[in-house]
């Protein structure tokens, strides 16, 4: 009988051991909301540089925010790297992230620092990206269509069922697009516009980059996306071309935040400081990431969209990042667009 008891006992003990041994090793735990390749390149470079192992998980911006919120009682990750700035701002205003002013902030461009200043340095800008779309050149040639160059072009009946854009509920990209249109046209007019182009949209995807990926593969004609994602596809050899809408467009400030009460606060700060250096930011290009980097010493890639040549709106990050505006717009989108399909 004793033998059996030992068996049961050993099982129980090992279960408890597994639980309590979980948080012992000094690693960095990171949520990453940019493209997989850049996430991995950054994690590997940091490990190579410092010897600190990185446990990294890629999550879409919305998903990462939801996860951090769900874990707030018992945070599992140290740092959230990348993803649309409005989500980071929301995390900051919800008290999910930790205030920290890195000594390397001085190396950053103004728009990146501004992101820190508006939140009391609970987040910081690390890259920026311009909203637009990409179209599949082979498809347009084959069908003999003219590419859309402005938001108003997307209404053309030629593009019926050829546009893909993400669902703003799940995708930071799509929410940026929604907010951009509202700022461009005014709220009511923006929703009228969305209703008009609804017939041209084949699918509201979950992931922000799914549309442009589909366009690259020819699964759809046009994918609304950040231009750096379009350029990445073009650079990878796909027949896509980026368009910055001529009637004005919005942009995102990709950000980084330290998670409050994360398991390894010191390691997290080491990463935070390192991630702002020119060396770390320079990794983007090799990984096929064409965002404009925040560090002044990192030259944008020649293919990267030029901020000064694009007609940018004066994007109100504070307003459109706030939970109130956000849930109002999303609810209206659900009611007037999603539920009418």
């Amino acid at each position, binding site marked *: *009988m004793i033998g059996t*008891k030992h068996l*049961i006992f050993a099982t*129980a*003990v090992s279960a*408890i051991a*597994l*639980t*309590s041994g*979980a948080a012992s090793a000094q*690693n960095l*735990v990171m*949520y990453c909301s940019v*493209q*997989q*390749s850049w996430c*991995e390149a950054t994690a*590997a470079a940091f*490990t*190579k*540089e*410092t*010897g600190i192992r990185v*446990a990294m*998980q890629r*999550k*879409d*911006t*919305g998903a990462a*925010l*939801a*996860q951090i*919120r*769900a*874990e707030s*009682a*018992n945070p*599992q990750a140290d740092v959230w790297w990348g993803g649309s700035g409005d989500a980071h701002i929301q995390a900051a205003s919800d008290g999910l992230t930790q205030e920290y002013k890195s000594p390397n902030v001085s190396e950053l461009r103004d728009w990146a620092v501004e992101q820190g200043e508006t939140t009391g340095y609970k987040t910081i800008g690390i890259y920026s990206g311009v909203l637009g779309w990409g179209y599949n050149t082979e498809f347009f040639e084959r069908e003999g269509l003219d590419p859309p160059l402005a938001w108003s072009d997307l209404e053309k009946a030629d593009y019926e069922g050829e546009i893909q854009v993400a*669902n*703003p*509920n*799940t995708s930071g990209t799509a*929410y940026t697009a929604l907010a951009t249109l509202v700022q461009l046209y005014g709220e009511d007019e923006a929703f009228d516009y969305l209703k008009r182009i609804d017939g041209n949209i*084949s*699918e509201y995807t*979950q*992931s922000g*980059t799914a549309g442009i990926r*589909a366009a*690259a*593969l*020819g*699964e*759809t004609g046009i994918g609304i996306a950040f231009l750096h994602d379009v350029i990445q596809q073009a650079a*990878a*050899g796909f027949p896509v071309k980026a368009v910055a809408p001529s009637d004005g467009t919005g942009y995102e400030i990709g950000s980084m935040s330290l998670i409050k009460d994360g398991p390894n606060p010191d390691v997290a700060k080491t990463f935070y400081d390192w991630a702002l250096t020119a060396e770390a930011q320079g990794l983007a290009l090799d990984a096929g990431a064409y965002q404009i980097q925040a560090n002044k010493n990192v030259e944008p890639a020649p293919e990267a969209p030029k901020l000064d040549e694009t007609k940018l709106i004066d994007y109100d990050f504070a307003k459109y990042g706030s939970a109130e505006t*956000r849930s109002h717009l*999303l609810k209206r989108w659900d009611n007037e667009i999603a*539920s009418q*399909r």
Partner: protein
Amino acid sequence: MFWLVVAAAASVLPWYAVAPANAASSGLLLALGGSVAVLPVYAVLLALAGIGVGGGGGGRAAQRLAALASFAGAVWILVSSGLQGTPYDPALALTLSNQPAVGWGAGLTVVALLGLGATALARAGMMDGDRFGAHLLVLVCAILALFVLFPLAQILEAVSRPDETGSVLAGLAGRLGGREIWGLTCLVDGGRCGMVWNSVGLGTAVGLSATLLGLGASLFIVRTNAPMRGPLRLVTLLPLVTPPFVVGLALILLFGRSGSVTLFMYDVFDIRPSRWIYGPQGVWLAQTLGLTPLAFMVIHATLVSVSPSVEEAAQTLRAGRWYTFRTVTLPLIRPGLANAFLLCFIESLADLGNPLILGGGFRVLASGIYFKIVGAQADLGEAAGLGLILLAISLTVFLLQTVWLRGASFVTVTGKGDGGKFGELAPSLKLLVGGVTLIWGVLIVTVYGTVIAGSFAQIWGRDYSFTLTHYLDAFDVISGPHGLVWSGGAWNFFFTTMWIAAVAAPLTAALGLLTAYLIARRRFVGRGVFEFAAMMSFAMPGTVIGLAYVLSFNAPPIEITGTAVILIVAFISRNMPIGVRVGLAQFSQIDPSLDEASTTLGARPGMTLRRVLYPLMKPAVATAVIYAFVSSVTTLSQVIFLVSPRYDWATTYIIGLVENTNYGRAIAYSVVLIVLLIVIVALLQLILTRTEFRRVNTKSTGETQ
């Protein structure tokens, strides 16, 4: 005695997972310091030691009381801090409502109390005084209560929380009602239907098609002498070691708008490429291909159990082949067909991967839960509402399956080998069966061919030149100043997946088989309920388990989110029912007088299990371990909410790649996973079933599955 020693040892260990500020850490010191949470536990322990449970004193009534006190003590430890589900705030004083999660001391004390309770129950006459059985029963019940029933209760709680206006009813209505869930607009004007109808409709369609295909393939293999039956059997098993969404991925590569078949059709027949694969029909196709093997196995088992002599009898009664098939064979295997249908229905309902990558705007309950959680609105309450509905449907089907099919087994195998040969099928039927099976086989081969080819192609659909990039990206190793860096993106997921599944599989199998042992070989009060509870988690869709675990284990008393334990526990409770099922089937094949003989020869339960039952159960052990391992590695729905950066899973990694349309790397990784699983399954099969013997005197009730 043993358990009292364990409790004593536990009393000097840190009671909580986190040492509370301004308070002692060990249970003993906390009790001496007058902690309201700990004192009652030690009062119980002292009382137990006092009435001499350790020595066996007291009558049956006293023992019953002791058992009750032990269990109350264990429950108190877990409940005293956890009812609020609020996190521990170290800034506040340590009070009943502000305690950290259970640590070594408290955990071991719970184990010791459960052990004491089991001992007392045995002494009170449960299971005729068998202490081994009593311990086992208490262990399984504790696991079921903690990791199945408690999480379910948390879902109910999340669903019935009051809404913003404070109204419970409005909260319920918001989470369980709504057009998104129940809408029927698809019937009128080409709108979209609610997720419930989508799920049920898809499940029914998949159940029907998979059952028909499975029936065709079973008939083809059992009842024809066509060549290629051996390879076909192997091919049918492939989807079992494949992450479910890989089939969907291959379908995109084949039938997507720039898929190879689509482009071929465009070039040759000028059929304009379309997006038909995205939507219900694509999900249906992927799930049908993925689930047919399941239907095949169930139907195959039923079909071979039909005694040839009944068909021979029908034919001597002047029935033609078609007539025999229709009036004898088909009715006899009807329970198998129903079973296959229901299983596929449940699996289709639970599948998350295929709706995620092929669904387009078509939402089912499983993917609905996912988007409720990962979406920007992150509403756990609404997710719980969907989870509850999904669970209700699954459980209803499961109940149907257990109650309705229990009495409906027409197995015709008798103890004596009945002899006889299966008759030939009617020619028309043979042709039909062969055709159906052929189409299915070709599809499967194409799907897997695509997967393998795709993993070596530069960019599928554009640039078919050979490359190893995808493998290198995933499994590269570089060296740096601090030693080797496993820089390939897949390593982290790979190691975690393998070791966690390797830990979970034997535990799952052992627990499942031991539970089957209790059900098959022991009599105790509430055995029927126990059996149902043990089998129930089989019907819990993975997304629901994941959701329930997130709700349950993120705060004291048990804080295990973000650890490996939550994954292991989730696998054990989800996959255990298969161990139970396999175990029950095997036990029904083993004459109970074998264990009785062992007992009357003086062997204790431990020896009987080890020397008599284990050797005879080896096929079941192998099946249970292999199933547990494979399904842990290939599951997506179960882990998607439970993974953390530190413990991430292969499938979530792959689905992430798919969502980013990084198909090459996603399938390269899938290929590695599939090949590895095949190797591991073969090895396990070899190790676990080495000894072969011919069975004698074992009852063959011929139970299927």
